[in-house]
C-alpha cells in the first residue's frame, strides 16, 4: 500500500492526463477545470463576451493548466490572467483585449476590497484651501486606476451597460478609475491630469505637490474641480492624514 502523499501525487498525474474517453477520472478532471473556467468567466465577463464562450473556454483551460490556482478563494481567481493573455496570439488580433482584461481585474479588486469610509465633499468643504494643499491623502482601499493606450474603459462600460444601437467609441488613450465609496462600485474614464494627480497622491505627495506637477504638465487643468470630482467619486479615504 502506498502512503497518502504518494497516492495523492499519482492521482493528480492521472487526472492531469486521463487515459481514454470513458475514464471516471474525467469526472474529477472536468469538475476541476469547469470550476476554474466558470470562476474566470465570472471575473472576466466582458473578455468572455468579446471572445465568445468557446474561445474564452479554451483560453481559460490553457490558463488553468499553466497557472493553477494556489487558493480555494476563487472570488479573486485570475490575477495573472491579463498578463498571460497578453502573450497569447489573440491579443495581437484585438488591440484593446488585454486593456479590457486589466479593467475587469481592477473592477473585481474594487468589489472585494476592504470597507472604509470615503472622504466626502462635505469633509473637504470645512478645510481652508491652503491647509488642504499641505495635506496628504490616502486612496480608498477599493480605488483602482490606470492609464492605457486604448479606450478599453469605454468598451468595458459599453458592455456592462448595453444601449440600443451601435456603440461609438471615441478612440484615444484613456485612463480608468474604479471606486466603491458605498457598496456599489463605480467606473469612469479619466483623463491625463486626473491620472497624474491620482498617481502623485498614491506616491504619497501632498496635494499641493501633486497639483503643481499636474498643472505643470497640463496647464489648462482646473485643479480644484478635478480634485473635487475625484473626491466625489470616492477615490480617497477619511480620516484626512495631516502632513
Amino acid at each position: 500500500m502506498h502512503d497518502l502523499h504518494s497516492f495523492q501525487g499519482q492521482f493528480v498525474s492521472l487526472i492531469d492526463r486521463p487515459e481514454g474517453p470513458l475514464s471516471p477520472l474525467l469526472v474529477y478532471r472536468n469538475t476541476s477545470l469547469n470550476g476554474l473556467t466558470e470562476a474566470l468567466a465570472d471575473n472576466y465577463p466582458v473578455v468572455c463576451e468579446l471572445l465568445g464562450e468557446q474561445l474564452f473556454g479554451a483560453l481559460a483551460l490553457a490558463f488553468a493548466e499553466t497557472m493553477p490556482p494556489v487558493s480555494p478563494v476563487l472570488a479573486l481567481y485570475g490575477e495573472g490572467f491579463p498578463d498571460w493573455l497578453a502573450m497569447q496570439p489573440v491579443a495581437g488580433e484585438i488591440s484593446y483585449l488585454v486593456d479590457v482584461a486589466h479593467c475587469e481585474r481592477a473592477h473585481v479588486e474594487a468589489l472585494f476590497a476592504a470597507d472604509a469610509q470615503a472622504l466626502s465633499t462635505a469633509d473637504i468643504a470645512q478645510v481652508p484651501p491652503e491647509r488642504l494643499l499641505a495635506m496628504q491623502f490616502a486612496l480608498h482601499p477599493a480605488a483602482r486606476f490606470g492609464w492605457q493606450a486604448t479606450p478599453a474603459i469605454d468598451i468595458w462600460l459599453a458592455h456592462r451597460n448595453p444601449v440600443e444601437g451601435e456603440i461609438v467609441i471615441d478612440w484615444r488613450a484613456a485612463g480608468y478609475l474604479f471606486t466603491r465609496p458605498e457598496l456599489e462600485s463605480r467606473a469612469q474614464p479619466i483623463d491625463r491630469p486626473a491620472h497624474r494627480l491620482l498617481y502623485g497622491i498614491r506616491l504619497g505627495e501632498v496635494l499641493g505637490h501633486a497639483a503643481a506637477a499636474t498643472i505643470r504638465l497640463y496647464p489648462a487643468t482646473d485643479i480644484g474641480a478635478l480634485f473635487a470630482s475625484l473626491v466625489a467619486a470616492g477615490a480617497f479615504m477619511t480620516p484626512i492624514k495631516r502632513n
Partner: protein
Amino acid sequence: MTPTAGLSLKAQHLHEALASPAAGLWFEVHAENYMVEGGARLAMLEAAREARPLSLHGVGMSLVGTELPDPVHLAALKRLVDRFEPFLVSEHLAWSRLDRRYFPDLLPFPRTNEALVRICRNIDHVQTVLGRQILIENPSHYMAIAGHEWREQDFLGEIARHTGCGLLLDLNNVAVSGHNMGFDPALWLRSFPAEHVCEIHLAGASEDAALDLLIDSHDRPVSEDVWQLHRRFVERHGPRPTLIERDGTIPTFRMLMRQRNRAADNLRINLKELAYA
C-alpha cells in the same frame, strides 16, 4: 428559533429570503465565497445573518492530507466564524490541495489507518484554531480506489469519536455513490453512525450517460429516492437541520422553498411522532 430546514443562500434571492416568514428557515453558504476583505457580498451575508441562523460550509480546507491545513485559509475561515457566529461549520472528507496547487473539487483517497491519523490531526487542529466543533461530510464517489482498510461509515464514526467533530450526512452523495459504486443506499445507511449526525444535505444529481455515472451536480430538484432516504433517516433517528443544496440552474426562490418546505414537513412529522411516543 430552532433551525429546521434551510436553503443555500443565493444573491439573486436575497430580498425574498430575508422577507420569508417560514419558521425554522436557515441559510448556508460556501465559506470560500466570503473570504474577501469587504464589499456588497459580505454586507449581504451580514443581512442574512441578522435575519436567520447561518451555516458556513467549506469546500477548500483539504482535510485529507499529510500537511496541516493551509494557515492562511484557516485564518480566513476563523475571521468568518468570529464575525458571523454560524450555528454550524462544515467541511468534507476529501482533499483539494497538493503541494500548493488547489483543485476546485473533492478528491478521493484510500481510507487507511495512516489517513485516519492524519485526518484526525487536521480536524483537531481546525477545531482548536476555530475554538468550536466542525462537521465532516461524506463525499460522492465516482470510481473504486484500491487500498481501503475501512468502510466509509466506520471511518467517519471513528473520526467523530476521536476528534469530537460532528457529521454532515449528505444523502444525495449516498445515493450518487450507491449508484456509481453499486451498493444499496438504504442498507449502507443502516451502518452509518447516526448519533454523530448534526446536519443533513439534500440535493439533485445529474446523469453522465457516456460514463454511466450519477454526478453530484446540485443543479436539479431532490430525487424521490433521496426524499425517501431522508424520511427514513428522520423516522429512525429523529430530526436534524436539513439543507436543500442548490448550486446550478438556480430556480425561483418559491420553487426552492417548495422543496425546503417538504424537508421541513419530513422533520415535523417526526417531531409529532416523538411527542406521542
